[in-house]
């Protein structure tokens, strides 16, 4: 029984034991959000005091890149830090903070320039940021996509929240509706994380979709090879699909995987807050786990995981089905109109555009990504 998601609920659901904590001093992870918010080290310490007793952990962020002002802590910044340090427990954590930027600076762009200017960076970056594809220029998205390719070539794992508007909705000039994909979630060179909820909100049991989980198909980037078979299987076998006019079925499909995104406890400005939700919560949870798998790989002298998607989409064909809990129940939001009536895609077996491949079963995911 539980009254909301805490680190021990997360670690229990995803089968992480007390021994699943970082051991290597030179491993690291990072989170970045671009709401120009602060996090407080005192909040992290309090959070770990309240919720961190069941696993070895750090109570302080090791490095802040950018300015941390004296303002109030922000909910998003606190959430990111507290949960990446809960699954990526005892791993050196950096925070890219862009509070107090120059008035005409674009915080997200500033972060990309940092990636191109720092030769030593954490291997895993959990990023809570997204915009509608149709609000951005093609030149900008294509160039940002190349920046993600540069990061992938260096072995960095970049995880983006899939967004909190379900499939999204856009009214076209003629009055028709279409779904509204989000960028950078739709970049083929990042790993996009969706959201789930507990089927019974008070028990650690099976997960169903979180109706806000962002997902769908890009209108800008074509479907990459690594996901073609999985997505085609979904489109062929789904019992119910929205009208094809609502989405571009040949676009990059996302999310790639998910984690719980509903009903989190967060400590911010020294106050424990319940009921915090969003894929900004599920993304750092997955980020911490990827950092922990890197820890085990580095101990074996193996390379870090880097750009995760090709390996992720091969798990099933390699017989590692159990590496992820397949979420097959529930749908997500979309347009409130007479045709789709507020419903976007629905979850299905294997990959789907609401939860991707599902949620991580840590020991099995570790086994799948750590060759014997």
């Amino acid at each position, binding site marked *: 029984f539980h009254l909301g998601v805490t680190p021990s609920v997360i670690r229990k659901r995803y089968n992480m034991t007390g021994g699943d904590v970082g051991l290597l001093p030179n491993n690291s992870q990072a989170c970045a959000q671009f709401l120009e918010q602060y996090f407080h080290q005192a909040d992290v310490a309090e959070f770990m005091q309240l919720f961190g007793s069941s696993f070895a952990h750090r109570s302080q962020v090791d490095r802040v890149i950018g300015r941390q002002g004296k303002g109030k802590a922000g909910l998003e910044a606190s959430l990111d830090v507290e949960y990446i340090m809960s699954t990526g427990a005892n791993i050196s954590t950096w925070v890219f903070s862009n509070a107090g930027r120059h008035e005409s600076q674009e915080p997200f762009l500033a972060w990309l320039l940092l990636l191109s200017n720092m030769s030593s960076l954490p291997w895993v970056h959990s990023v*809570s940021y997204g915009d509608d594809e149709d609000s951005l220029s093609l030149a900008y998205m294509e160039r940002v996509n190349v920046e993600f390719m540069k990061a992938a070539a260096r*072995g960095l794992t970049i995880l983006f929240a899939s967004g909190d508007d379900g499939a999204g909705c856009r009214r076209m000039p003629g009055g028709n509706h279409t779904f509204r994909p989000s960028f950078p979630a739709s970049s083929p060179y990042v790993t996009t994380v969706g959201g789930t909820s507990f089927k019974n909100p008070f028990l650690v049991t099976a997960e169903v979709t979180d109706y806000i989980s962002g997902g769908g198909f890009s209108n800008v980037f074509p479907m990459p090879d690594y996901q073609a078979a999985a997505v085609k299987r979904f489109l062929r076998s789904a019992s119910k699909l929205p009208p094809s006019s609502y989405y571009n079925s040949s676009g990059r499909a996302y999310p790639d995987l998910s984690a719980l995104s509903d009903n989190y406890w967060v400590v911010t400005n020294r106050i424990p807050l319940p009921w915090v939700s969003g894929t900004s919560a599920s993304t750092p949870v997955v980020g911490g786990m990827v950092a922990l798998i890197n820890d085990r790989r580095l101990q074996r002298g193996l390379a870090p995981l880097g750009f995760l998607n090709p390996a992720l989409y091969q798990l099933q064909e390699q017989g590692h089905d159990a590496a992820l809990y397949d979420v097959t129940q529930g749908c997500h939001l979309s347009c409130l109109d007479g045709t789709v009536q507020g419903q976007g895609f629905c979850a299905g077996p294997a990959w789907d555009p609401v939860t991707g491949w599902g949620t991580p079963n840590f020991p099995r995911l570790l086994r799948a990504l750590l060759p014997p």
Partner: protein
Amino acid sequence: ALQPEPEPPCRVPPGWTPAGRVDPGHEVQLTFALRQRGAGRLSQLVRAVSDPRSPRYGKYLSLEQVRDLVQPSPATLTAVLKWLQGYGVEKCSSVTTLDFLECLVPASTAEQLLPGAEFHRYVKGQRSVVRSPLRYAVPEELAEHVDFVGGLHRFPAERKVVSRAWAKKEMESKQHNGARAV
């Protein structure tokens, strides 16, 4: 002049209030995304180092090796630097991969550099940004050297985390509005 970002139409996100044009001497920060080389090669490399079945799996590049792959051509670097110096723009910094240039420029100079741009201040609560509500262009001879210029059109991201109660309220108001629209 050519517009690197002709679409989508400029729009000020809800909640941001125009607070007038900035003074001509007010410094704005412009980020020039310079045209890179080697994107095709980079894409092949990413595939090779990220696919567990590939013999190159996990053999990642250093930042310096990525630079050697993508850095702009001498022609691009020369053309852009000459253009900026022609307007007296000198307070610039680059990055290791040489494919971005960040410059502090007086607004009046920036508006000459980027025909069509106009720098206005917008405020939202405690936050204030300077952006251009009008599309910018770059001289035709520079268009092949610049992917886009940051600091003109995109506003800061909005909040992403919702408390469930907040989401429900949002949903209800959308439903209410949505119903009316339908």
